[in-house]
């Protein structure tokens, strides 16, 4: 039976075969990597450079034939002195702060509980992790139903527990509950992620450290603060940074829940950016806005990578 490799070699035209045979290993490696690099440049790097360029102009994508004017730093100055954008940043900060606080506390507590061995541990872990696996679009839609004043389960439960009529308040409407509603949904969805990272941290602590502490008659409280917390802290920091970066960019779920309303109560920076770019069509201005958000996320991502390396060194 003829060898298939021989057959393939014979089928290769001699000029191509000779050409490939003449290439060094390094050149062949570059040949394989080149399409990826090309795609990366075309999809990521070029648009980024183009956005930087646009951020210094008054370009509007809905008026492509209009003359584009070079405005220098004007877009950046207007954004960074705008009270409205400052307020949006504070809305983003409120969302970021409370989601991180709640997710860290609940995530760590859940990890602490799950780390113990008991019957049904695996099943419980799977159930807790479920929300994280859902699409933000699905989560946004079904929480909209849960928050419905007339038929929603949340209002019904509040009525049951406090006696406040269910249709007297709206979690997503005016009344000041909307910022907290999006915090609750994000916490519900992403606490399992923080839990998993904390669980990895807890399981990385060797038992002999606790055994040595027991020998030294350290109390459980002391063990928690001097062993558990310091050993889990790098993992926790990693989770905080990751969730911080993700929530800074939060868009889909909040758009589906509130659309930035009522008024501007839940208008996060990313939603405002989308409005500027694709509703008001201020492309140059929104490019500058995007660059400001990008530099912030890039800076945070740098810290994240540094923290990740520290965890890897452990």
């Amino acid at each position: 039976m003829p060898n298939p490799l021989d057959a393939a070699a014979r089928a290769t035209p001699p000029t191509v075969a000779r050409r490939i045979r003449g290439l060094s290993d390094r050149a062949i490696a570059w040949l394989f990597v080149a399409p990826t690099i090309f795609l990366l440049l075309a999809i990521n790097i070029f648009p980024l450079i183009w956005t930087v360029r646009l951020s210094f102009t008054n370009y509007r994508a809905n008026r492509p034939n209009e003359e584009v004017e070079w405005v220098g730093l004007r877009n950046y100055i207007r954004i960074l002195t705008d009270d409205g954008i400052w307020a949006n940043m504070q809305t983003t900060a409120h969302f970021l702060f409370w989601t991180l606080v709640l997710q860290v506390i609940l995530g760590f507590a859940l990890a602490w509980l799950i780390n113990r061995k008991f019957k049904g541990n695996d099943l419980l872990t799977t159930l807790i992790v479920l929300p994280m696996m859902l699409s933000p679009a699905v989560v946004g839609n079904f929480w909209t139903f849960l928050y419905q004043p007339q038929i929603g389960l949340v209002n019904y439960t509040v009525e049951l527990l406090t006696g406040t009529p269910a249709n007297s308040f709206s979690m997503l409407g005016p009344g000041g509950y909307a910022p907290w509603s999006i915090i609750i949904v994000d916490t519900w969805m992403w606490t399992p992620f923080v839990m998993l990272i904390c669980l990895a941290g807890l399981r990385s602590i060797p038992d002999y450290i606790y055994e040595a502490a027991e020998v030294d008659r350290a109390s459980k409280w002391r063990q928690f603060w001097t062993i558990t917390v310091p050993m889990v802290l790098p993992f926790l920091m990693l989770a905080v940074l990751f969730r911080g970066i993700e929530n800074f960019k939060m868009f889909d779920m909040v758009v589906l829940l509130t659309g930035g309303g009522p008024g501007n109560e839940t208008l996060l920076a990313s939603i405002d950016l989308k409005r500027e770019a694709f509703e008001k069509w201020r492309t140059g201005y929104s490019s500058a806005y995007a660059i400001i958000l990008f530099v912030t996320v890039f800076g945070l991502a740098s810290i994240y990578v540094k923290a990740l390396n520290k965890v890897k060194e452990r």
Partner: protein
Amino acid sequence: MTDFLRNLIRLRRGPWEMVATILIALGVVMLMQPFALALFTWSFLVTLVGTVMFIIVSHFPE
């Protein structure tokens, strides 16, 4: 502290990365604080300096 300053002068990665990290964190806090518009105005510059510094100093020797 003396070690930190010595390593800073000798252009070592550790302390310089720390300075860059502090600048980035400060920039983010300035961007989102509710107290002064002036801090918000300068936040981008601080974050940008921190980020660029981080990229450069991460190539310094350990």
